[in-house]
């Protein structure tokens, strides 16, 4: 998952970046409104965290312009003012949720995951597709009730595919969301990861959870459980 953090306070920005990265996100950062708007428009993001009190371009304006530019990923507002007028304005501008400063990092994380889940059409934090269950909060995978150990990158790929289960996800998109900008994109590391993931999830080659569509990308092929 690739997240953009737009926050002018350097210490807070760095802390958020480090802790989000530790939680499995690929993190872009911006220190002011203009930088944030640029990053928000140019990078392939899954979610953005935007502080309302930004120098340069105000946070509200950044959100408005991103929405005007047809960026549909969820946006989480950070605000120090914590009044309803700001919340109403922020959400009217196009944000999806807010967190008041000072926040617990765990709360930010929980809200980000909830936003991502909802953006993918999932109601519960447990993504269930037949025998494969991914818990976004605990970041655990079970296949037919048996726990499966995944590496960070394997987990990120699976989470991304499962959040958008049924849709085609291109290789370029996966690369962008897994790695920072300077990653060398031509490498076949995605294919290698995908092979390992398939073997771990489906050692008997019976379930075939991940399809490869030649030239287009990958698709999580198991149907979502109706209840989730």
């Amino acid at each position, binding site marked *: 998952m690739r997240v953009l953090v737009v926050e002018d*306070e350097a210490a807070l920005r760095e802390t958020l970046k480090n802790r989000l990265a530790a939680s499995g996100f690929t993190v872009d950062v911006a220190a002011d409104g203009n930088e944030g708007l640029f990053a928000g428009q140019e990078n392939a993001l899954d979610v953005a965290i935007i502080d309302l009190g930004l120098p340069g371009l105000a946070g509200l304006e950044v959100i408005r312009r991103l929405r005007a530019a047809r960026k549909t990923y969820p946006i989480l507002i950070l605000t*120090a003012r914590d009044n*309803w007028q700001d919340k*109403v304005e922020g959400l009217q501008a196009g944000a*999806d949720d807010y967190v008041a*400063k*000072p926040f617990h*990092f765990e709360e930010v994380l929980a809200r980000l995951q909830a936003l991502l889940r909802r953006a993918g059409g999932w109601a519960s934090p447990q993504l269930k597709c037949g025998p494969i269950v991914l818990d976004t909060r605990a970041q655990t995978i079970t296949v037919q009730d048996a726990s499966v150990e995944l590496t960070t990158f394997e987990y990120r790929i699976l989470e991304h595919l499962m959040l958008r289960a049924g849709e085609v996800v291109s290789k370029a998109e996966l690369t962008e969301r897994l790695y920072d900008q300077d990653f060398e994109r031509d490498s076949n590391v995605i294919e290698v990861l995908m092979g390992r993931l398939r073997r771990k999830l489906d050692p008997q080659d019976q379930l075939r959870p991940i399809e490869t569509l030649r030239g287009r990308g990958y698709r999580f092929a198991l149907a979502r459980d109706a209840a989730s």
Partner: protein
Amino acid sequence: MGAATVSRWRATRRPRVTPAPLKRHTVHSLSRRLLVSVSVPLALFFGVMMLVLDSGFRALSERSLQEVLDSQMVSLIAAAEPQPNGGYAPVPHALDPRLATPRSGLYAEIRSQRHQWRSPSSAGLDADFGTLLPSGERNLSYASFGHDRVAIESRAIQFEDDPNGTRGLTFSVAVSLSPYEEQLWRFRQELIGWFIALMLILLVTLAALLRWVLAPVRRMQREIYEVEGGVSEKLGTGYPRELSGVATNLNALLLGERKRVARYRDTLGNLAHSLKTPLAVMRASLPGGEAGATIGAEIDRMSGIIAHQLKRAAASGGALLGAAPVEVAQLAAELRATLLKVYAGKDLAIELAVAPEAQFIGDRSDLTELMGNLLDNACKWCRSRVRLGAAPVYGAGPRERLSLVVEDDGPGISEQDRARVGQRGVRADENVPGHGLGLAMVHDTVELYGGRLVIDTSPLGGARFSLRLPGR
């Protein structure tokens, strides 16, 4: 404190009487004072004038009466001739014809010790002209001849050729007073009629003048009402010189107050930002373990106090005169949309039953905070239903004309916790389990506006917050 707080708190929260907006027609109105103070001396002046004119008229009529009496006396004396019987009587053709007509109002008598002549006009009347006078004397008296009041002039005369020697004659002439009295009454009636008419005309003119003169004052009064009621933002222009200063200064005050509150809020917002960002940095970079947990708890406490006190300070409490009334329906719809987004992960419905004419008189952000906190709280605790009702209450006190009800189908609030909601302002760090600072904020704001807040159980099953606020 505890449950007892609720009842005491409710008991003191009776409908408050507003600092009375100026009434339009009090006894102390300027125009009434002026009218009263002018009409009293006016009545006094007219009364004295009437007395003076009346006595003048009476003097005049008395003199004319005297003249009539004198001239009749002179002609009676001149016409008196001795009679064969030794008495005196006037020569008939020299007499005033009225003396010959019965009850004509003019009567005469010539009397000596032994003889008496009376004019034919007094025939049949119980006439008493008085006693004989000593020679040379004269006398004016009043008497009644039957029903007729008369003035009698008597004169005692000694004729030099009097055959009776020293014997004197008393001549009397009586004139009826009724024509004079009638005239006096008519005069008085006319006088009173004119004076009353004149006074009424004067007072009406004065009242009309006052109306015209005081029209700008009334206009100012009306415009102040409008500002109070939020119909307009400030007083208009075009006041006369004496009042334009007042109007300008009042406008400056209103504007200054609004700007002051806006600047104040801005400052508070900046303060919140600059206090909370470092707290956020601290919180985010805490070390793990026990030390981190302790510091984290303290940071939470600090930020709770900061949030609460800053919000408290930012609530204007309706000090904003002239702010436009807030449309509750519009605000409710905005908050509903916001909350549905925030609680998108929860399967809930927010029902709005807001009368389109419901308006809040006060500050928009105060109401936004109030409703936001209540609805947020309801959304947090409900199972699936939240209901917001708002309607104007006609006939309620001016500070209770808007009714707001927020209810949900959650677990509700226990009696004990209901009471603590009111205490929260004092101990911002002491949490009622599950009910954040928002409710304390709601309580404070309602109190600032002089409204009412009652917490009980909703028919939906959860908590119900019923508020009364200034509105219409």
